[in-house]
């Protein structure tokens, strides 16, 4: 369970204690970033989403009645915000410039296998379900233990293990050729 100190911080933040809230930003923004990144697959956008989410959380903090649910609530706001951004990006067709630069870059950088691997990794990640991605991000960005991830995403231990296992399996099957190359490096 949440320790008393943490609880007190959440409670203070809800009551408008700015310092407490900033403390929460320090401790939680990485988690939020992981969630947003899991959805958006883009650093800048994810960071913006996290910022938006934090501001929004500060403004509507009075809605939270139970301090223990504060982190989950934060995560939810970040997720919604990221989805919003994602949806907006989706609806706007990719500008020519973007695709052009993409192909251009591909042409330019094919020789470095590292870049290629990166690209492949991201496109494979994009095919994963959102929840899987989030779990992966939390694990690899934050190096969280399973317990914390379960709490943040609201999963049971078995479910989390299954998700992570399936996610990694899918990924390695998709990236099989690339993996061989990577191993060789």
């Amino acid at each position: 369970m949440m320790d008393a100190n943490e609880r007190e911080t959440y409670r203070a933040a809800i009551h408008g204690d700015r310092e407490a809230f900033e403390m929460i930003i320090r401790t939680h923004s990485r988690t939020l970033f992981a969630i947003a990144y899991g959805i958006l697959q883009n650093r800048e956008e994810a960071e913006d989403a996290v910022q938006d989410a934090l501001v929004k959380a500060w403004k509507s903090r009075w809605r939270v009645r139970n301090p223990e649910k504060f982190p989950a609530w934060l995560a939810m706001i970040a997720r919604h915000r990221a989805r919003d951004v994602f949806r907006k990006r989706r609806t706007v067709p990719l500008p020519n410039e973007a695709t052009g630069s993409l192909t251009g870059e591909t042409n330019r950088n094919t020789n470095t296998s590292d870049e290629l691997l990166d690209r492949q990794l991201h496109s494979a990640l994009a095919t994963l379900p959102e929840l899987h991605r989030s779990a992966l991000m939390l694990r690899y960005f934050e190096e969280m233990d399973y317990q914390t991830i379960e709490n943040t995403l609201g999963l049971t231990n078995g479910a989390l293990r299954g998700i992570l296992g399936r996610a990694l399996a899918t990924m390695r099957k998709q990236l099989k050729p690339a993996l061989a190359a990577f191993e060789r490096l």
Partner: protein
Amino acid sequence: MTVHDNIDNFLVADLHGELTAAERNELETHLLDCAACRQAHQETKIMNQLFEEKLEKPDVAFEQRMLGAFRNRVPEKNRTVTNFIVGLMRFRSAQIAGVAAVLLALVQVGRLITNSTEAERVIVTGSNIPTAEEARPQNLVAGGRKGAPAPLAGIWKDQANEGRESDELSALAKVPAQPALPDSGATSASGFGGSLEASATRQSPASTAPSFHEETVLPAKAKAQTEVAPPPAPVEANRKLIRNAKIELEITRFDDAVEKITAFANEERGYIATSGSQKQANGKLRGEVVVKVLPENLDRFLRKVRGLGELKNQTIGTEDVTKAYFDTDSRLKNARVMEQRLIDMLKAKTGKVSDLLQVEKELGRVREEIEKMQGELKYWDSQVQFATVTIALAEKDLEEPAAFLLKERAQLALYSPEVEKIYNDIKALASPKVQITNAQLDRDNSGRVSARVSMLIVPEEGDVVIGRVKSFGRVENFQVQTERVAQGGQGMAENAKTKRDKVELNISLSRDEQEQAFQQTSLRIRTWSVDEKTKELRNLTEKQNGRVRSSWFSRDPNGHELANVSLRVPMKNYSALMQSMDSLGKVENVSVQRQDRTGAQIDEANAPADLSIRVYSQGNIVSSDSGLIATLRRTIAQGVGAIMWSLRMIAVALAFFAPWVIALIGVIWISKRMMRARSKS
């Protein structure tokens, strides 16, 4: 669940160090056995490594960036107030109160809006006036055609005099364009004189007005006219208009006014036709002056005369006799021709004598007619030549009284045991100086006697006679009323004399019993033997010169005994009786009511005081409906009553609060739904 089936999960958890010791053992043994799983293990390891290396993790400054951005976007401003409000909003009660406040505010706003719309409506109705005014010129044109602007003047009284002038201008300008001319005789006039000059027509709407009494309008009217047609142009020779005016004025001095009117008349080339005055009782003059002035100067003359005093009434009239005049004129011409022919016939002297006689007779008739018509025409000429102005003059303070009469009226009520004797005594006062105008003695079937006497006393004897009458009995309610009656007018007059009139005295006589008590007392006496004490009370009363007027006794089944005694004593013995009352028993609930009759002379010592005394016993202390069961029954009944009452109160409170609670719940529910919908989207 075997390790092989879930190899992916196991491998990942292993790499993440989340396997329990037992699970790890299981996995390791399985990996030794299964080549495929070993392969997967290898691949997963690489994958894990790839992730750890390749995923772009947030840099070290990430948190700082987040904080900075947050601080940028949410500046620390008026912390205390917002914090306080935000803190407040966390409480349900505060939220409810907030919603209630918003509801109230809405109601207020609604009321405000409705109020303001009402006000606007008023403004809108007010703004109808200009639209009506727009229609006015047409009305005026129509009115001008009929030659009767008076009703219009009444309707539009003081509204926008300037607007009126311009309207009138436009209206009057339209008049000449109309084929029908303003006056009834205009049709024939047009036949005679062809087209009339615009100036003449322009003048007509005002001058042809038969009568209008709007004093407030008149100055404006006159002003308008001066601007429209500066000096009234001379009426066209062919038109025969008789103009006359009537003015009522209030002036300070009659002679001065007449002098000035004469001067004005001379100025306007007119003359005073008649003048008469009459002296009123209070020495003020009232009179009438008839002035003849040239019609074209009439308006100027009237304006001058109006300045002499306060205008009370004014009537200006114009009579168009054009048609009648020229009819008569042409008939006169015909008659002249006829006369000439008859004369010719006489000169020829042909025919029989009887015929000649006939001609002679006819000639006489025609001549008579001619003279009559000539007279008529002359009269009209004189009337047309001069306008008649009748000025009624009245000096101010005409109503001031000439004298005053002081009337004294006295009223007296006498009480005595022997009404008849005093009645006769009063009647004996009659003398040349004391006139009894009315005397009557009434005795009704219950034996009550009362009398009324009215008399007139010469002023000098008034006080003496009234004093004598007062000595006959106990005086109650003596009133004198003095009235100063003005004669020959109303209001104040410094010099008027005052005369004393006869004193009128009205006396009403009645017996003691009918007199209303000066003081009324009610009290209760608690005692054990009601009967005995009542008797004692009677004795006490007689000792104090009082009388028992009524008494009443009752006893109820519970042993309550009750006696009501009402008695009357003179005021001087009242306190003694009250003191002796204590010997009878416990005196309770004493209430004294005293009627202070102001303005009346009262013989206080002998004035009657009424006492109403209730003597009672408590009866059996233990009542029949006592005992455990009766007490219980009473208690339960009272308890049920109280519960029913509180239930009713609760219901009332519920009925009062229910709509509000329902509205609140509705608002909260809707806002929650909206919030949820927003968060879902």
